[in-house]
């Protein structure tokens, strides 16, 4: 990564909280203007990572650079105050100031930085218009919906003209339809503002839609730092398979690009070059990628027994048993109706997994 | 309350506080000149206030009069120091002398207190003498014998007259101060109490004083308000002058009499 293009760089970051090591040598790098997404289960230390970058939690060691400037370095003793780091923070509940109106909230960073009140309010109104919240200008934050709050918080953060935007679970507090609407909006705003952003979330959908680079945070370490497509293709490689809800099965390499999976038989899949025939492998694939009743001659077809069928919002959730393996898939309603209705419990069905949907790695 | 209201309220409070500080600072008065600190029992506050004023007028000295119960005053004298100590009873003066806080040579009697039986107006229990206090059903109050001068005196008097064991079952309250005891009588909470005769004059319309024949308490003698110069006094001559003034001057004696205190013999009206 060229220094000039640096947006955010985190090196060997160690953070302890209450005597517990939360981050253990975390590494992360984002080019300027990129959106980095840190995926991790609850309690993995995602918020701690943000707070360390923000400067309100002091790491025990490591180094943080924002837009090429060192803001924290344990070896040289640099530790800039949060207000001098240029990293605007949007917390999970958006952190709007309840004693100020929407417009005053958006103008807050400008007033705090010494811009005269009149000018600050004018500029705030401009930013509010850009984010479509100008009609809420004189409202109090408590009167806003979750989606409105998020847009106001975003407007306020952008008004600060930060060098880095820190977003903590930006969609968790919202209902599903609002979430679907706001993800593209956030993506558009981040692209247009050409701003480096670090977003932490437990949702792969957030990462998929918003992320240029996706990291996995597990046990205090960051892995990945790849495009979301690459992460989805090779979840085992980045230690993300379990987090992303992939089925993980043990298998043996039969021959190059052929794996023997107990219960599923011989499957075609890209396998590691280094693996010796007969060696133990892990295979991972998404439940959604299982195809029911594939056309004859489809590769990777196996037979399974239907254990359970439940209706869901989009279709049916079907639990299959193939040997010892228990697999769960979701099939769209229309797709199953076209095949003569959903399978019944106890029925034997044929199923297949496309070879390109299977990731393999040495066990 | 929004930010502006809070600011206005804050401003008002700050202004009030500043004014009050100014007033207090002024009140503190830096040049108070010569100050005589005297500790006076609060039960006799009224006459003491007048005597202090008369003394100030005569000498031009500022007297800082601190009031309280005898024990309280003794503690303050011990901690802070002062010039004159005048508790409510001889007992506390003895303590002060024993502790070396008061010069024994300077102790004098300021005013005498005669014991009486104080009853609510109309004398509901028909008390006419000490032996009536032993009558079943009479509610009697006395001061705490271990801690209050008037209680100690009552107990000694009842023991002297052989009535203590008989009166004891009738005692419904042991008051912590003579004022409290007097209030019980004035409010009708007890039928009778052994107090000083001056206490009747606190509530002349609500109480009656039944005299106790002098031969019954001649042995104990009247109680009195003692006064003496503190050993640590920084103005001992002035303090002695105050003691003299309070116990001997015609003006002071007149004040004591006006408040129905007795004055030591030899100073007739």
């Amino acid at each position, binding site marked *: 990564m060229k220094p000039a293009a640096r947006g955010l760089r985190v090196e060997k970051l160690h953070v302890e909280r209450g005597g517990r090591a939360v981050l253990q040598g975390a590494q992360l790098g984002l080019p300027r203007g990129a959106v980095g997404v840190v995926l991790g289960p609850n309690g993995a230390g995602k918020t701690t990572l943000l707070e360390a970058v923000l400067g309100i939690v002091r790491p025990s060691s490591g180094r943080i650079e924002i837009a090429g400037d060192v803001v924290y370095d344990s070896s040289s003793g640099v530790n800039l105050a949060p207000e001098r780091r240029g990293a605007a923070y949007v917390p999970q509940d958006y952190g709007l100031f309840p004693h100020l109106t929407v417009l005053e909230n958006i103008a807050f960073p400008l007033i705090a930085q010494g811009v005269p009140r009149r000018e600050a309010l004018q500029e705030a109104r401009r930013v509010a218009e850009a984010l479509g919240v100008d009609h809420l200008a004189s409202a109090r934050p408590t009167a806003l919906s979750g989606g409105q709050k998020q847009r106001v918080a975003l407007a306020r953060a952008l008004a600060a003209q930060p060098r880095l935007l820190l977003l903590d679970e930006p969609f968790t507090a919202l209902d599903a339809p609002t979430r679907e609407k706001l993800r593209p909006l956030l993506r558009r705003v981040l692209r247009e503002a050409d701003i480096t952003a670090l977003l932490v979330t437990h949702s792969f959908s957030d990462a998929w839609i918003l992320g240029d680079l996706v990291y996995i945070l597990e046990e205090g370490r960051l892995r990945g730092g790849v495009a979301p497509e690459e992460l989805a293709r090779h979840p085992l490689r980045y230690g993300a398979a379990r987090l992303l809800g992939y089925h993980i099965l043990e298998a043996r390499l039969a021959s190059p690009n052929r794996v023997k999976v107990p219960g599923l038989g011989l499957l075609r899949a890209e396998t590691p070059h280094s693996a010796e025939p007969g060696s133990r492998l892990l295979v991972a694939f998404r439940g959604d990628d299982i195809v029911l009743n594939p056309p004859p001659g489809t590769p990777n077809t196996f037979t399974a027994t239907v254990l359970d069928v439940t209706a869901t919002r989009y279709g049916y959730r079907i639990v299959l048993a193939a040997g010892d393996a228990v697999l769960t898939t979701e099939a769209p309603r229309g797709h199953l109706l076209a095949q003569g209705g959903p399978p019944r419990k106890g029925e034997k069905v044929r199923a297949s997994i496309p070879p390109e949907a299977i990731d393999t790695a040495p066990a | 309350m929004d930010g502006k209201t809070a600011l206005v309220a804050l401003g008002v*409070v700050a202004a009030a506080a500043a004014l009050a500080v100014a007033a207090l600072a002024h009140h503190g008065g830096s040049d108070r000149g010569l100050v005589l600190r005297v500790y006076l029992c609060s039960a006799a506050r009224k006459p003491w206030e007048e005597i202090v004023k008369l003394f100030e007028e005569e000498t031009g000295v500022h007297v800082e009069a601190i009031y309280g119960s005898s024990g309280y005053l003794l503690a303050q004298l011990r901690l802070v120091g002062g010039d004159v100590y005048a508790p409510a009873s001889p007992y506390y003066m003895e303590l002060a002398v024993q502790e070396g806080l008061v010069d024994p040579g300077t102790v004098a009697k300021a005013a005498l207190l005669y014991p009486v039986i104080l009853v609510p107006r109309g004398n509901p229990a028909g008390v006419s003498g000490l032996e009536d206090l032993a009558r079943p059903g009479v509610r009697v109050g006395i001061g705490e014998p271990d801690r209050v001068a008037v209680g100690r005196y009552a107990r000694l008097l009842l023991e002297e007259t052989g009535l203590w064991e008989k009166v004891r079952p009738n005692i419904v309250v042991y008051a912590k101060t003579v004022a409290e005891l007097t209030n019980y009588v004035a409010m009708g909470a007890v039928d009778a109490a052994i107090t000083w005769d001056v*206490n009747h004059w606190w509530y002349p319309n609500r109480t009656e004083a039944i005299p106790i024949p002098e031969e019954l308490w001649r042995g104990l003698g009247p109680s009195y308000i003692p006064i003496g110069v503190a050993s640590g006094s920084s103005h001992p001559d002035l303090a002695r002058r105050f003691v003299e003034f309070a116990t001997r001057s015609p003006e002071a004696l007149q004040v004591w009499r006006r408040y129905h205190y007795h004055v030591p013999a030899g100073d007739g009206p």
Partner: protein
Amino acid sequence: MARPAAVAAMLAAAAVAALLAALAAWAGSSGFAAAAGSGLLAYSMALSVATATVSATLAIVAAVPVGYALSRRMVPASSLVEALLLTPFAMPPVAMGVALLVLLVGPASWLNRVLDLVFTPRGLVAAQLAVTFPMAIRVVRGAFDAVPPKLEAVARSLGCSWWCSFTRVALPLAARGLSAAWLLSFLRSLGEFGASAVLAGVKRDTATLPIAIYLELSGGESHAAAALATLSALVAAVGAAGLLMLEKRSGETTP
């Protein structure tokens, strides 16, 4: 359950009303006249309000940094420190007065030479301050506890310095709690007797309402004492009404 509880509340209120009525009745016009005549009525009321205003203001000014530091756990061994700071809360005020007096005539006599606190009206402020301070810290701490630290983190990330986020976010959001703390301290100071009597002395020039009541009562002037007590109940009632108004308004604005 609801009915007996309501009845109990009404009974309690009636009992307080009866108490005040009895006090006023015992005072009578002669009591008020006596208290006014001795010069204590107007003086003690003015002195009480003045000293309580000063001590409540000082208590809050001092409690804001302390309460904030405790709320944000900026102090090492903060539970221990807080327990120590709260200890005087449970101390009898007389004991506090003795402690102050012992301190000011002993090891801290230089402080008394500068501030002139023993047996002076200024001592009243010191005594009231000592008694109300732990309570003020507690209430102020609670006011800051109600301000999410995350909001201050957000403010700082937006370029606001520590002082800026304290004055523009923490203080305004805690303002209502601070007002309540001020009023509580004021009311507590109005009623303070024990520490004041020991440190400032029971004297005419240090006679706040409670001290004037004691002065009158120990001299047998219970009518005048009742008149002063009625007056202090009225002052307290005004303060209590203010407190309730604050609480009511806070109930309206917070969701």
